[in-house]
């Protein structure tokens, strides 16, 4: 929506931690690493990652960055660092998780929602247990393939949840909600995760992790 500008951009999240490594990226001051991140679980702010809404009555015909949209709503696909989530028959979202920011196609179905959404990554062993205290959604169905997504409330706030990885020792979930709820959401997740020693972490924890299939 706006060309890169000298005005600094801000994500909705502010962690009261000391950043150890910072990178300026498209106007955002992205924290790559905090001083005391601990050993997990981690809460990572990815709100600066590009996010687009795609709305069209003929959604299945659209191939964002060459990706094929999942057939049914509440399904998602991960390819080349993009997570493509089909929310309804007419509405999808594309989150760019890894790699350099792409150009959004200048076409009617696309709307840039990077600024409109909070995107958080939750990583660690106890993420399923932690999210059980926040969200009444069936996210951890072992029989369903990964990645998987659901739409539902987290702390009663409409959210999108996606699972990238699920194992007894390590899980990765992504949580997206409205920007205005971001700070409150992050604070409450940290509070909920106190028992598991959840701490904020920089983006690097997320980008360094994950199988090559993510990228």
């Amino acid at each position, binding site marked *: 929506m706006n060309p890169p500008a000298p005005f600094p951009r*801000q994500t909705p999240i502010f962690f009261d931690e000391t950043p150890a490594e910072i990178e300026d990226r498209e106007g*955002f001051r992205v924290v790559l690493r905090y001083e005391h991140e601990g050993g997990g679980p981690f809460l990572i702010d990815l709100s600066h990652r590009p996010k687009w809404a795609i709305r069209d009555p003929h959604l299945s015909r659209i191939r964002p960055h060459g990706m094929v949209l999942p057939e049914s709503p509440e399904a998602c696909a991960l390819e080349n660092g993009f997570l493509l989530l089909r929310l309804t028959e007419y509405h999808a979202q594309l989150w760019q998780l890894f790699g350099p920011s792409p150009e959004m196609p200048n076409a*009617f179905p696309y709307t840039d929602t990077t*600024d409109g959404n909070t995107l958080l990554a939750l990583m660690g062993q106890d993420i399923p247990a932690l999210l059980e205290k926040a969200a009444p*959604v069936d*996210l951890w169905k072992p029989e369903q393939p990964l990645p998987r997504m659901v739409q539902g409330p987290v702390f009663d706030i409409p959210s999108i949840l996606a699972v990238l990885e699920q194992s007894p020792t390590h899980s990765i979930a992504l949580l997206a909600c409205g920007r*205005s709820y971001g700070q409150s959401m992050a604070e409450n997740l940290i509070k909920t995760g106190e028992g598991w020693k959840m701490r904020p972490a920089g983006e690097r924890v997320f980008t360094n992790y994950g199988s090559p299939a993510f990228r």
Partner: protein
Amino acid sequence: MAILLRNDNGFPKMKRRYRHRIADIDSLRPTLRIDPSRRISFRFGMRSVKGFHGDSVATALYGHGVRIFSRSIKFRRPRGLYSLNGESANCLMEIDGRPNEMAETLLLEKGMRVRPQNVRFSLKRDPSGFMDRMDWALPAGFYLSRFHKPSSLRPFFLKRIRRAAGIGRIDPDYRSEAVFDRQYIQTDVCVIGGGPAGMAAAMAAAESGVRVVLLESRPWLGGNFDHRTGEFETGVNLHHRSRSLADQVDTASIRRFHQTVAIDLSEGAAVAFRMGGGENLFDRRLLDIRYRSVVVATGCTERALLFEHNDRPGVMQVDCAYRLARSYGIFPGTAAVFSVGHDEGLEAAAGLHDLGMAVRAVADCRAEPGDSKLVEALSERKIPYLSRWHASEAKGKKRVEGVVLRDEKEGRQAFGCDLLVASAGLSPVIGPLSVTGAEPAYDPETGFYLPRSLPPGVHMAGRITGLTHAGAVEASGRSAGLRAAGDCGASVEAALQESEAVLQTLPGPAGGKTIFLNIDKGKKTFVCFDMDVTVKHLRQSVDRGFDTPEPAKRFTGAGTGPGQGGIPGPNLPWLLARLREASPEGTRPTTARPPLVPAPLAVYGAGRIQLNRFSPVHSLLKEAGAAWDDSAGWRQAAYFDFDPAARKEIEAVRGRIGIMDAAAQGKFRVFGPDAVQVLERIFIGKSADLTPGRAKHSFICNEYGGVLYEAVTACRGPEDYLVFTAPGMGKAVYRWMIDHSENKDWDYRVADLTESLGAVRMAGPLARELLQGLTESNVSNPAFPLMGFRRLRLMKEALTVQALRTGAVGEVTYDLYMPASLMAAAWKALTTAGEAFGMHPYGLKADTLLRLEKGRLHIHRESENRVTLLDLGLERHWRRNRSGAGKVGDAALRHTAGQTGRMKRVGFRMESAADRDRPLQDGAIVVDDTIRGHVCLTRYSDTLGEQIGTALVAEHLAEPGTRLNLFEHDMEPHQRRHALVVPLPFYDPDHIRMKG
């Protein structure tokens, strides 16, 4: 062995020498649930007491010699440990300041402060105990018929009754430090009950590959097998078998929740309550469980045996006595008499004898003798077994000192004892099934009230079905588990066939037994301990016509106490049938309703976190000293400088320039070939004539012509519009837009940009000058007129905004929209640039008054069902739709356009200058000989130097110059205040400042 003495009344009296804990406690190891090496000290009243790790509060107290735990609600009778399952209020105690904690099930923790309830002075000597002799004054339903006349004394009696009633006292200053939280659990199969049937069901389901959750109310699995020494199969005791099953559950992929009871079950969802504390991170937790199939394996409780003084401390159920000994290593008494109606009573009598307790006699109230092996075991131990005998009266004033046994033919026998183990048989725990919709009916085969049929996805297993054979109990669990897995799509046919075949080979449900009881007197034969309801009360209830369980429950209060009908529930239908000389088959038990067990109210609210919505400039406003207001979930700046009247803020907007955070505005992009059709449909004004660069202020009406929302629509380009709504209304407008266009075949899209776009409002006579200084574009009045919409590059093209010029507060006003991520930086830059112009931030309080001065409509305060857009004086915003169709609200406006006698919105100012010091109240009513309207919004305006406001009044009062009589709710009836109707707007009526 205890020495028996003679009492004055001839009954033997126990020497009070207790051996509370079993000396050779290690011999109990297989079933022992306490750790004797870990002592825990706590306080009971003023005393320091010690228990063991694994004790419940009640068992620790019992082990310390405490026999009276509370006093009853009505008759103030001493009450003791009766069951260990929380079935009555006998052991409700105040623990760590929290009243009504169930000491029977609450695990002991170090440093707990335990106090008895409903007691004056001491448990043993309570002066209010005289109430026990006042039973003649308190018949069934006494509160419905007594103390009503004379009516002047009714309040006096009510006050005293209320003071005397209730259990426990809440300290209003008490603040709980306990952690209450909530957990959402998703599963395929939910098994309720961790006994042998429940464990077998959970394992069978888990083997089928589905997700399984197992809930158990005790801190361990095992259920009824856990403490019993009976034989499961040759060489294997029941408790060995329960350990073996629990070990298998441990290794299976089953989620187990101990100390967890289901309090509600409905289609696909269960609510359970979990006790925490100790090493847990919570004290109480509400589990919200979503399942696809449920197995109820809650087993049986014991039916209370009815006899005179059956509530005396020292009378307890079989399970309670046996578990005290085998699980907690406590002698329930020194010398016991058993009066029982099931084989487990015989087993317990033999077992307790073997542990060293004297068993004086075992009376079996069944018509047929019990299991021959067990009878033989009693005979070997030289314990008298009295078939067809039962207890008819417990002796002793504050605790059991003896018992009278009775047989219809052979008469009476008296025994000295300090423990009377009493049980009339078993009763299935069908509450969880009942709340799923399963209707219970009398089953003559088992003598139980069991569901006639079960809803889909609901199964029952184990002793609840009437099975008593250990192998059959387990096999029924396996079958139920497989069926539940089958409900979830697992392939279980072969395994189920095999399991059913095994079950067929095992003994079926035990036949119902006739039991003999004496309920002739019933004056102090308690059916319900919690509410002090006796057989006599039930007889009175039947005599008054309340002769079935539901009305009798309400008339007498039986089953309405904290025990949720645990003690009276099984007896009530049976007893009422007997009192009216009918068969129990025609009687239904009372309806079970959630919560099935009591849970603290705080648990229901646990985990409910209200998230606030924050603007991107929240921290900057905080630094500027904002006071906050929560509006539609947004935390918005209400005022600054600690001045709720917002004088400086208003002064800045009227005299120089004010800046406001408008991020909470709803913002939508409506685009596509048919976008204008959508706008034409939902807005009452015309949208089709909007050209790029222009905007329009309009209203959304409902089907009755009432005003719902206001919005500004700006045209970005062909087929591309932005809609801006008032703060907090975005979601509602979006929903309205979708709902009123979804059945049209229109090609358009709506993108919600509420969160994506930040918004800053600059208003004031110097706003244009400031803006011009920031941009190279021409923003002069002709180039950027009122309701213009422009794309501007500000601050040497560092920031691009979409600017909308409005007149919201009656001054030159610019709403600047930019990406939300840039809003904080933009705010900082604008306020820095604005310093030279005397810019000041302003909040909602100032905005409300500024808009009122300009006569702007305050949606929801001024719009209501009785008035339309036209009544509100906004006809200029209505573009009549010639086709008469399509525009929501148009038809209603046409219909009401010519009507007279409607309410009208008017402006007014207070008549007297003295009103300056006494603000008029919003909501004051307009009166003459009747109510003629009400004040919608009123404020004192420093700009105008008078109190102004708007009101909805009857049409004949709407003419300017009319004098309004106003009445405020706290006035004397004859008092009035007066205002004059004046034309709107109050400020700048020719709009020179706004347009200039």
